[in-house]
C-alpha cells in the first residue's frame, strides 16, 4: 500500500510525461489529479490504520531494495509511514489534489499543459519520498527531487528570461543549503554509522550528553539545509522570486509543502536538536529575524503574489521560532494551518490574476468584491485566518507559538508578537486594496473582470472551510482537556511504552497562569484589531492607494526594495564570482587551457596529415614499410 501511495504520482508523471502530448488536456489533467487523489485516499486509510488500531506498530515499514551497499556502508531504499510522516503526507496529497484540480482550470490555455501536470506529479512523488523515506539518504533523495521540480516549475514559462533567472536563483540558493544538509548527513554517518532514523535516534538517545558538540554541529548543518529549503535568512531571497512560476505552483510548492520540508527535517531530528540548546537558540533567533524582516518587506510590496511570498517567509520564520523554543507540536500545527490558509490565499490570488487577465499589481485592482464574490469571501477567510481572527485556524496555531515563545523568553514573545501584528497590516492592506475601493486598471475594463470557473472556486471553498476549522487539529487546553492537543498526543504517543514516539523527549508543558494566558490572548487579539482598524481606515475609508515606485521615499523605499538584500548579495557574492569567472574564462581558459587542448587537436591533425601520406595505395611503399617493420621487430628481439 505504502509503495502504491508513493508511486501513483510517479506513474502519473510517467504517463503524462510520455503520452501527455497526445492526450486531450482534460484527460491529462484529470489523470494527474487522480494519481494524487489516489495517494491521498491510501494515505488516509493508512493513517486510520495507524492511529485507530492500538496493536499497530509505531510505523508501517516497507523496504523496496538495497539502495547502496559498499563495504560497511548500507542504505536501504525503504519507506516508513509513522505519525509525523502521516501528517505531512496528508497535507501534501490532500492539498496537492485540490491544487491539481485548480490547475486544470487555471492552466487550460497553456501549451505545456501536460508538462505542467507531469512536473506537479513528479513533485508530489519526490515530496512523498522526502517525508516517507526511512533514512536520511532517502530524505536527501526527495529533497533534491523537490528542488529540481521547484526549479522546473518556477521556470515553467521559460520563454521569459527573468523567470528562467528566478528558477536558477532558487536552484542555486537551495544548493547552498543542500551543501549544509549534505555535510550534516556525512557527520551523522561519521558519528553514528548509519542513516536509518530509528538507529540514529536510538544511538543519540543512548549516548545522550557525551557528544553534544557533535550533535550541535549536526543540528546546525541540518539547519543550514532547512534554511535553504524553508527560505530563512540568509537564504530566503529565492522564495519571492519563485513567484515567477504559475500560481498553483506557488501555492503547492512555495507555500504549503516544499518550504515546510525544513520544518519537517527539524521535527524529524528532534532527538538531535533536543541535545543542543545552542542550535535551538540559533534556530529561534534566525526564525525571529526572518519573520520580522519578511513581514516588514511585505508591507510595501505591490505584487499580490510577492506579498504572499513574504508572508510565507514570515510565517516560516514563526515556525522556526516554535522549533527553537522546543515547541515541535506548535510548529507542525502551524505547518498544517498555514498550508490551509496560505494555499487558499495563493489560489485566491490566482483566481484574481485569472479574472484580471494576468494582472498582478494590486494598484491596478480594486473593487473586485462585487465581480468575484466567491473569491472575495474565501480570500477574506484566508486573510482572517492568517492574521489571527479569533477561533479561526491561524489564531490557534499562532497563539500556541506565541505562548511557547513567552514561556521560553518574553523578549522573543514581544518580537514575535510584533511580527504577527505586521502580518495583519500587510494582509489587510493587500486585501482592502484589491477587493475594496474603486477599480483602477486602465487596460481592461471593469466589465471584463470575471469570476473564475467552478473548478477553481471549489478548491477555494474547500480550503476556506479547512482554514476555519483547521484549528481543531490541536485545540488549546483552555477549551477543555478532552478535545485539546490532538496533534500533541499524536506526536507523543508511545503505544503504552512499547515504542519510541516521534518526539522522544517530552515537550515542556507550557505552565502559564490563567491570567497570563488570557493576557496573551488579549494582546494577540488587540494587535489584530489595531491592524484591521488602521488599514481599513486608510485604504477603505480614505481610499488611499499605495504609492507608485517612484514616489517611495525614506524607510518605505528601503522596504519596497526589500532592504536591498538582493543588491547586497550581488555585490558581495555574485559580482566577485562573475569577475573571477571573467578572469578565469578569458585568460586561464581561453589562453591556457584552450590553447593546450586545441594543441592536441591541431597536433593530431598534423600528425595524421603526415601519416596519411604514407597510406598512398602504392604497394611498393607498403612493402618497404613491412620490411622495415620486420627488421625493427627482429632488432627489438635482438637487443
Amino acid at each position, binding site marked *: 500500500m505504502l509503495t502504491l501511495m508513493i508511486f501513483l504520482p510517479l506513474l502519473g508523471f510517467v504517463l503524462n510525461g510520455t503520452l501527455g502530448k497526445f492526450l486531450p488536456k482534460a484527460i491529462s489533467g484529470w489523470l494527474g489529479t487522480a494519481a494524487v487523489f489516489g495517494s491521498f485516499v491510501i494515505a488516509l486509510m493508512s493513517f486510520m490504520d495507524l492511529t485507530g488500531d492500538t496493536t499497530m506498530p509505531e510505523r508501517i515499514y516497507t523496504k523496496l531494495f538495497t539502495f547502496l551497499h559498499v563495504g560497511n556502508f548500507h542504505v536501504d531504499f525503504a519507506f516508513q509511514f509513522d505519525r509525523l510522516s502521516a501528517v505531512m503526507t496528508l497535507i501534501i496529497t490532500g492539498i496537492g489534489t485540490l491544487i491539481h484540480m485548480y490547475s486544470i482550470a487555471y492552466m487550460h490555455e497553456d501549451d505545456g499543459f501536460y508538462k505542467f501536470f507531469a512536473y506537479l506529479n513528479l513533485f508530489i512523488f519526490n515530496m512523498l519520498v522526502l517525508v516517507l523515506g526511512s533514512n536520511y539518504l532517502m530524505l536527501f533523495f526527495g529533497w533534491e527531487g523537490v528542488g529540481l521540480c521547484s526549479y522546473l516549475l518556477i521556470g515553467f514559462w521559460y520563454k521569459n528570461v527573468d523567470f528562467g533567472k528566478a528558477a536558477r536563483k532558487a536552484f542555486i540558493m537551495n544548493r547552498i543549503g543542500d551543501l549544509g544538509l549534505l555535510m550534516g548527513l556525512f557527520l551523522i554517518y561519521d558519528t553514528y554509522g548509519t542513516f536509518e532514523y530509528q538507529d540514529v535516534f536510538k544511538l543519540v538517545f543512548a549516548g545522550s550528553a557525551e557528544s553534544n558538540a557533535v550533535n550541535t554541529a549536526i543540528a546546525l548543518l541540518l539547519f543550514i539545509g532547512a534554511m535553504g529549503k524553508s527560505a530563512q535568512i540568509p537564504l530566503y531571497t529565492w522564495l519571492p522570486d519563485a513567484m515567477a512560476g504559475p500560481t498553483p505552483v506557488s501555492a503547492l510548492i512555495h507555500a504549503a509543502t516544499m518550504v515546510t520540508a525544513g520544518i519537517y527535517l527539524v521535527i524529524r531530528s528532534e532527538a538531535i536538536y533536543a541535545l543542543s540548546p545552542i542550535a535551538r537558540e540559533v534556530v529561534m533567533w534566525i526564525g525571529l529575524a526572518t519573520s520580522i524582516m519578511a513581514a516588514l518587506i511585505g508591507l510595501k510590496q505591490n505584487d499580490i503574489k510577492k506579498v504572499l511570498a513574504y508572508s510565507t517567509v514570515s510565517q516560516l520564520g514563526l515556525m522556526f521560532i516554535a522549533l527553537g523554543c522546543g515547541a515541535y507540536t506548535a510548529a507542525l500545527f502551524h505547518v498544517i494551518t498555514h498550508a490551509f490558509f496560505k494555499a487558499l490565499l495563493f489560489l485566491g490570488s490566482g483566481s484574481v490574476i485569472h479574472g484580471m487577465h494576468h494582472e498582478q499589481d494590486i494598484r491596478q485592482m480594486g473593487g473586485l468584491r462585487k465581480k468575484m464574490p466567491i473569491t472575495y469571501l474565501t480570500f477574506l477567510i484566508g486573510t482572517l485566518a492568517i492574521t489571527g481572527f479569533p477561533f479561526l485556524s491561524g489564531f490557534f496555531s499562532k497563539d500556541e507559538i506565541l505562548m511557547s515563545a513567552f514561556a521560553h523568553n518574553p523578549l522573543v514573545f514581544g518580537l514575535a508578537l510584533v511580527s504577527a501584528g505586521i502580518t495583519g497590516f500587510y494582509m489587510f492592506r493587500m486585501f482592502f486594496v484589491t477587493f475594496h475601493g474603486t477599480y483602477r486598471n486602465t487596460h481592461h475594463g471593469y466589465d471584463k473582470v470575471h469570476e473564475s470557473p467552478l473548478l477553481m472556486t471549489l478548491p477555494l471553498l474547500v480550503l476556506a472551510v479547512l482554514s476555519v476549522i483547521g484549528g481543531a487539529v490541536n485545540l488549546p487546553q483552555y477549551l477543555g482537556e478532552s478535545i485539546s492537543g490532538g496533534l500533541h498526543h499524536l506526536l507523543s504517543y508511545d503505544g503504552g511504552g512499547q515504542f519510541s514516539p516521534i518526539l522522544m523527549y517530552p515537550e515542556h508543558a507550557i505552565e502559564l497562569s490563567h491570567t497570563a494566558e488570557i493576557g496573551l490572548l488579549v494582546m494577540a487579539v488587540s494587535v489584530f484589531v489595531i491592524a484591521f482598524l488602521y488599514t481599513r481606515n486608510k485604504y477603505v475609508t480614505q481610499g488611499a492607494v499605495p504609492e507608485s515606485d517612484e514616489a517611495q521615499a525614506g524607510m518605505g523605499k528601503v522596504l519596497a526594495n526589500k532592504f536591498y538584500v538582493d543588491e547586497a548579495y550581488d555585490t558581495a557574492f555574485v559580482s566577485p564570482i562573475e569577475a573571477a569567472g571573467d578572469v578565469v574564462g578569458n585568460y586561464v581558459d581561453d589562453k591556457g587551457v584552450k590553447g593546450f587542448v586545441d594543441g592536441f587537436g591541431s597536433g593530431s591533425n598534423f600528425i595524421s596529415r603526415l601519416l596519411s601520406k604514407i597510406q598512398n595505395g602504392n*604497394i611498393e611503399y607498403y612493402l*618497404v614499410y613491412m620490411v622495415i617493420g620486420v627488421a625493427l621487430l627482429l632488432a627489438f628481439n635482438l637487443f
Partner: protein
Amino acid sequence: MSILNIFSQVEISHYIYLSTVLFCIGLFGVLFRRNAIILLMCIELMLNAVNLLFTAFSSYMGDSDGQIFVFFIMVVAAAEAAVGLAILVLVYRNTRSTDVSFLDQLKG
C-alpha cells in the same frame, strides 16, 4: 651415400648465412623491381632460401620433419604461383601492363 662428408667440414652457420643472403637478395628484388612477374619470381627465390635452411637444419639434426615442411612450402608456392599468375594475366588484360605501381588504382 653423400658425395662428400659435408657435415664434418661445413658448419651449419654457413648454410644459415647462405640462405640469409639468398633471402635478402629476393627481398631486394621485391623492393626494387616493378614488373609483377619478376616480383613473383623473387618471392619464389625467398621461399627457396627458406627451403634450403629447412633442409639444412633437418639434415644436421637427423630429423626428417624439416624436409616434410619443404614439401608443404613447395605446394603452397605452386598454388601461389598459379593464382598469382592468373591474377597477373587478368590485370594485364585490363591494363596492358604488369607494373605493380599501377595497382595503386585499387586503393579506396
